[in-house]
């Protein structure tokens, strides 16, 4: 386990990260039923950074996440994940690469016929090389990270929406993936549960330095991530000291009409002169 992150560490991490992007989109386009959803976008996710993606419904936010791991193929352009091009790889060759990535789906997408234990352990059980004791230990560790150890024998249908999202996060992080993709993890949740999930994402970012793409409609969640860090000693999220905002590895990407209209940090977002962006953040 690494020591609690400080703004200085995060700044260093960000500088290093810019040299080795974990996800690269090069001139990527995709259309659904003749509607151009993404039109030649180019995006880079540096190592250790969390990038929040915004846009109106149907602007292609979730599509970006699915394309990043090859669940969807673009009509044009190239996509690199952890240095490997996913665009041309056949499905069979992508499974190994995907095992290095965790994803939290919009509606959690937990396997409803499996218990919480089996859901969280799914990836470990598929590896067939770990003992049952080791799997149990790691499942409990992942569930304690999301503070849901007591739900281990329950089925997803017995959990609330917020609990399901947290189980989905536990399932995504159990193998400590290099990249995490969150698809509207706080969508439709009450503010308290949303804050709990934001805290988990910040914890994952600051404690494990995981690179992540985060799709969200809630600008306030992304701002909390940009202005807070996770204090491991206190085991809670704390606001950054005044004057150090923008020092956490956090950036923003805004989509409009299939194009990227902003890709920058909190300061660039706050000082943008673009009318659409001003309206978006107001």
């Amino acid at each position, binding site marked *: 386990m690494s020591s609690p992150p400080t703004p200085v560490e995060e700044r260093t991490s960000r500088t290093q990260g810019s040299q080795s992007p974990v996800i690269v989109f090069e001139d990527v386009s995709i259309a659904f039923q003749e509607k151009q959803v993404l039109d030649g976008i180019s995006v880079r996710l540096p190592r250790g950074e969390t990038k929040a993606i915004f846009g109106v419904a149907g602007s292609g936010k979730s599509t970006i996440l699915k394309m990043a791991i090859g669940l969807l193929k673009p009509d044009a352009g190239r996509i690199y994940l952890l240095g490997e091009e996913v665009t041309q790889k056949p499905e069979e060759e992508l499974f190994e690469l*995907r095992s290095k990535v965790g*994803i939290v789906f919009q509606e959690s*997408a937990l*396997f*409803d016929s499996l218990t919480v234990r089996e859901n969280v352990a*799914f*990836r470990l059980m*598929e590896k067939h090389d770990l003992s049952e004791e080791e799997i149990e230990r790691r499942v409990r560790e992942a569930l304690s990270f999301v503070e849901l150890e007591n739900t281990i024998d329950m089925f997803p249908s017995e959990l609330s929406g917020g609990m399901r999202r947290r189980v989905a996060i536990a399932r995504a992080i159990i193998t400590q993936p290099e990249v995490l993709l969150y698809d509207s993890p706080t969508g439709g949740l009450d503010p308290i549960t949303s804050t709990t999930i934001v805290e988990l994402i910040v914890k994952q970012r600051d404690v494990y330095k995981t690179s992540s793409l985060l799709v969200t409609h809630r600008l306030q969640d992304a701002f909390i991530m940009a202005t807070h860090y996770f204090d491991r000693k206190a085991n809670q999220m704390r606001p950054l000291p005044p004057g150090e905002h923008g020092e956490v590895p956090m950036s923003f990407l805004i989509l409009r009409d299939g194009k990227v209209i902003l890709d920058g940090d909190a300061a660039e977002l706050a000082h943008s002169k673009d009318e659409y962006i001003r309206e978006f953040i107001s």
Partner: protein
Amino acid sequence: MELTSPTEFALETVAAVQEYSILAARAIGGLFRRPRYFADIVYQADLIGFGSLPIVVLTGLFTGAVLALNSAHTLQRFGSLSLIGQLVSVGMVTELGPVLTGLMVAGRNSSGMASELGSMVVTEQIDAMRALGTDPMKKLVTPRVVATIFMLFFLTIISDLLGLIGGGIVSTIIFGMDSHQYWSSAWQALVFQDVFTGLTKPLLFGFIIATVGCYYGLSARGGTQGVGRATTQAVVASSVFILLVDFFATKFLMAVFGYR
């Protein structure tokens, strides 16, 4: 209702055939690549095989009984009631056993597979599985195909046997035939070709039931309504395919054995 142009319909049909062929090929290919999901095969075998046993028992028993009942009247007219065992055994083993068992299992399991996998598609569970690094073809389709083929083979044998018993009950109780005569006639009428034909068909039907059910399930679109549609289509398509394949398989096997 929106009308589809003939070109669009043809393209959609070709695409569907292509997708089905890929699914079927990957389901078979999954057998030869690791990891192998033996536990899932056993689970599915229990679900498909043991779960279908009551309907197969009833279908077999009553089909044999009604076959004996209907043919007995005709045979009596020619004074050939003793042939009833022969007629029931050949009819059940070569045709009615495999086809009716296939149709029953298709109705129960093809729909079950389509609805289960369809629900997984619309709730993004299939995408989640792919994202977690597991091939849904290997994890979900291959075990269902293997289990259905394996279990349908034995279910057909059970159905054949029950059909013979049903025919025997009708022959002895209603028509007063000697049971020893019935069973000897039934046994002696069967030749290798009949048994081979009757036991080859469930292998083909099992493959059809599982692949068609999985194909429609994995192609489901449009929420719960889409799942319902996929379920119906799976039952209709697998039943029709069973009847079509039955004809061609029978014709082919007759040509191979060079008889009748």
